[in-house]
């Protein structure tokens, strides 16, 4: 037990040189993938990384075979990665070519590049295995990643690639933002859209290639998508999203690599991706801007305010016809709502001090009267506007006005009053243009 704890402690303090290399390499990679991924997510090109990462395989195999032919061992990482880079870029070229010259859609193009290039890679791998010196074991580890065997030189490669990619992003931040949000505007402003687009894809290829070593070919795509998608739940601002995405990517890399160093038989690539996915799930639920809870609360808030406005209007309209205090039943009949909903809304209104209960009867308080007056006035202003300016039938106008009155701001109401000056004829409270519960106006 003590051994285990001290082992964890050692890992955490990064005592082992190897752990230190792996952890820092993977963390840097995670951050970079997060940055590039944020742009790709907003470009709606999330799966491009998937196609590009698969497209690197033939290059890896060819580089392996060539280097074996020339007398090398075929396992030199820079050689394999250059091969990956070249074939990733050819995949990118084919993608751009198909997009420009055929009417194939984006998703088909991705599928084509992914499967044909990977198929070619599998064919070449089949041949590489047959070669005399072909201990092609180094090859298959590319597909699943071999994080644990990362060397200092590999980590440096990642750091250099990451620095280049981040630097380009930082320098072209404004241009890339424009590209993500309004490509046509960017084109009209004279920005080289095709160049920027290709540059972004080139950065994806760079991230893919440095990630092959860190998490493996298939899971590279996760690091390009998941942190960015998770960060999107927290903010509406691009700069914050890029930082957040980088942070989430880095954290996944850090925690995943540490966990895999501490616990035996935990493949680092898979753990890193699963941690990123967990962060995605947490963000999905708790995200501050678009998270599930926030959106549910917003909806609930709207629902509550709507129903309390409804109850005030119902009481006001009944009072207009002489019923100061009304029983629950007549309120229920006012709208298509359940007695339970009415009781809830009444209870809330009582708490707010708008409604008073006297025995079985309910009536508006003074404050409630003022509030209800405002609500009903908004409703009727909008109704009159719809009838006189939008040609909505009087029999339908109640329902139409119901939809909009709750979101009318003060400025809007003032403008309505100005516009409807003639129809209002100086009245504080205009009569309803339609029949209310059998009472004619």
């Amino acid at each position, binding site marked *: 037990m003590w051994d285990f704890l001290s082992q964890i402690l050692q890992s955490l303090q990064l005592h082992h040189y190897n752990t230190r290399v792996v952890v820092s390499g993977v963390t840097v990679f995670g951050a970079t993938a997060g940055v590039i991924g944020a742009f790709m997510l907003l470009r709606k090109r999330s799966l491009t990384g998937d196609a590009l990462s698969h497209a690197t395989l033939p290059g890896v195999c060819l580089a392996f075979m060539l280097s074996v032919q020339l007398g090398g061992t075929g396992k030199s990482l820079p050689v394999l990665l250059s091969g990956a880079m070249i074939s990733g870029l050819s995949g990118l070229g084919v993608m751009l070519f198909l997009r420009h010259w055929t009417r194939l859609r984006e998703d088909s193009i991705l*599928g084509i590049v992914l499967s044909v290039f990977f198929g070619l890679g599998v064919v070449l791998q089949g041949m590489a295995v047959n070669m005399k010196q072909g201990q092609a074991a180094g090859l298959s580890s590319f597909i699943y990643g071999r994080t644990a065997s990362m060397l200092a030189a590999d980590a440096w490669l990642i750091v250099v690639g990451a620095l280049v990619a981040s630097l380009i992003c930082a320098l072209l931040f404004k241009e890339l933002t424009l590209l993500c949000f309004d490509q046509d505007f960017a084109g009209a402003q004279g920005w080289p859209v095709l160049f920027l687009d290709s540059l972004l894809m080139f950065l994806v290829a760079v991230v893919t290639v440095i990630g092959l070593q860190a998490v493996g070919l298939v899971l590279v795509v996760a690091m390009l998508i998941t942190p960015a998608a998770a960060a999107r739940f927290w903010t509406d601002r691009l700069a914050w999203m890029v930082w957040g995405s980088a942070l989430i990517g880095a954290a996944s890399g850090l925690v995943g690599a540490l966990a895999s160093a501490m616990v035996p038989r935990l493949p680092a690539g898979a753990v890193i991706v699963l941690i990123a996915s967990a962060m995605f799930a947490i963000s999905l639920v708790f995200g501050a801007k678009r998270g599930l809870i926030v959106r549910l609360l917003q909806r609930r808030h709207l629902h509550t305010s709507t129903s309390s406005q409804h109850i005030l209007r119902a009481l006001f309209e009944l009072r207009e016809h002489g019923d100061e205090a009304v029983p629950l039943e007549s309120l229920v009949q006012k709208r298509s709502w359940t007695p339970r909903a009415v009781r809830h809304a009444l209870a809330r209104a009582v708490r707010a001090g708008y409604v008073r209960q006297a025995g079985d009867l309910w009536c508006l308080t003074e404050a409630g009267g003022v509030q209800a007056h405002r609500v009903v006035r908004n409703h009727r202003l909008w109704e009159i506007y719809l009838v006189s300016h939008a040609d909505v039938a009087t029999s339908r106008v109640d329902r139409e006005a119901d939809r909009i009155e709750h979101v009318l701001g003060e400025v809007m109401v003032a403008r309505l009053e100005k516009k409807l000056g003639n129809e209002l004829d100086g009245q504080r409270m205009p009569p309803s243009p339609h029949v209310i519960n059998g009472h004619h106006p």
Partner: protein
Amino acid sequence: MIAEFANSWTAHDTWIITTGALAAVACSLLGCFLVLRKQSMMGDAISHAVLPGLAIAFIVTESRGSVVMFIGAAVVGVLTAVFTETVHRIGKVEQNASMGVVFTTLFALGLLLIENAAHHVDLDPGCVLYGALELVKLNSVSVLGMDIPQAALNCGAVTLLNALFVFVCFKELRIATFDPDLATTLGINAMALHYGLMTLVAVTVVACFEAVGSIMVIAMLVVPAATAQLWTKQLGTMLAVAVSLGCGCAVLGHLGAILLPRLVNQPATNTQGMMAVMSGVFLAVAVLLAPQQGIVSRIVRRITLSQRIAAEDILGMLYRLESPVTQGTIVTLPDMSSILRASGGVGSTGFRLALRKLTRDGKIVRAGAGCGLTDAGRAAAADIIRSHRLWEVYLSHHLGVPLHELHFAAEQLEHVTTPAMQQELANSATDSEARDPHGREIPKGR
């Protein structure tokens, strides 16, 4: 070499091609709908995501019994589609991104499970990705006295299933694919159809990739359908083309896997990879040669058009030179060429080609350093000039185009004016407009 190859051909090779072709047909049938519904990447997502299904089925049953593994994988495959849709809907995440998150998570989970629980057995992720088509004969069953490989039977079954689905639901699928709103108003349950399709994709992926490997499944789900889309605009034809291409890929893929490595003195390589490559070759051919969409036919159309425009420009120029003012002026061919080029027309090669064609058609005759119109040529030229000047009248009177811009606009329009259009223009011009706004006479119509 061919004799040697023919001798080495065995029933085994025939079974490989048969199995591959069945799998390709099953995939390309569904692929057409995936491609048209912009869900091409679903095959990729599902084939990666089934890994945990395989692992869990194995852990639970502790055997590689194919039925349980099949069910486990198919269930996870369908769940991939469900999760993708759920994350997309409740999280408002873009569809591609949600697919990416879901399938990579499942794949990572699968790797983890295999590494931890099933590491001591032969459940190699590589086997899932690459399949073992070369080993197709190892596991065969006897049907009606024939030794049929299990894999061929499986692929045949899903092929039948998919063909039946496409045949029975053809009308609904077509409407839901091209016009989802119309489908909903017609009472077609688009949701049920979507998940039905996804279930079949999952079943197909799982049934086929044991035999042929997921990379070929992904390729066959997308590439033949996309290729067929370049050849035709008819859904029925597209299905037929895609299915034939799928079969073609299977045959050529196996032949290629045996023959191509011999060129560099290597033994045969991976058949299913080669099948995917062959589908790419078919696609490349279609991109180049497809009748409407192909690059070659588009370039040929463009050259033909520019040749016609060059010829018409030459005729127009010669006609104008015959006017009383300039009559007798000899314009040499190089001068004509440079004038045409300056006005945005063709280059010198295009000019020479157009000149040769006009001479061959008997519209112009070479005379010394220049050339002149024949009677036939003069009639054709008059027609073009008539279109040109009628357009000038129309543009000036009806659209108020200023005088100095008229010529350039009419120069564009004269090449696309049909006889009927010319008649309409003539009708809209009054009698007093027998001359164009520059005061030149409009030639009479034929």
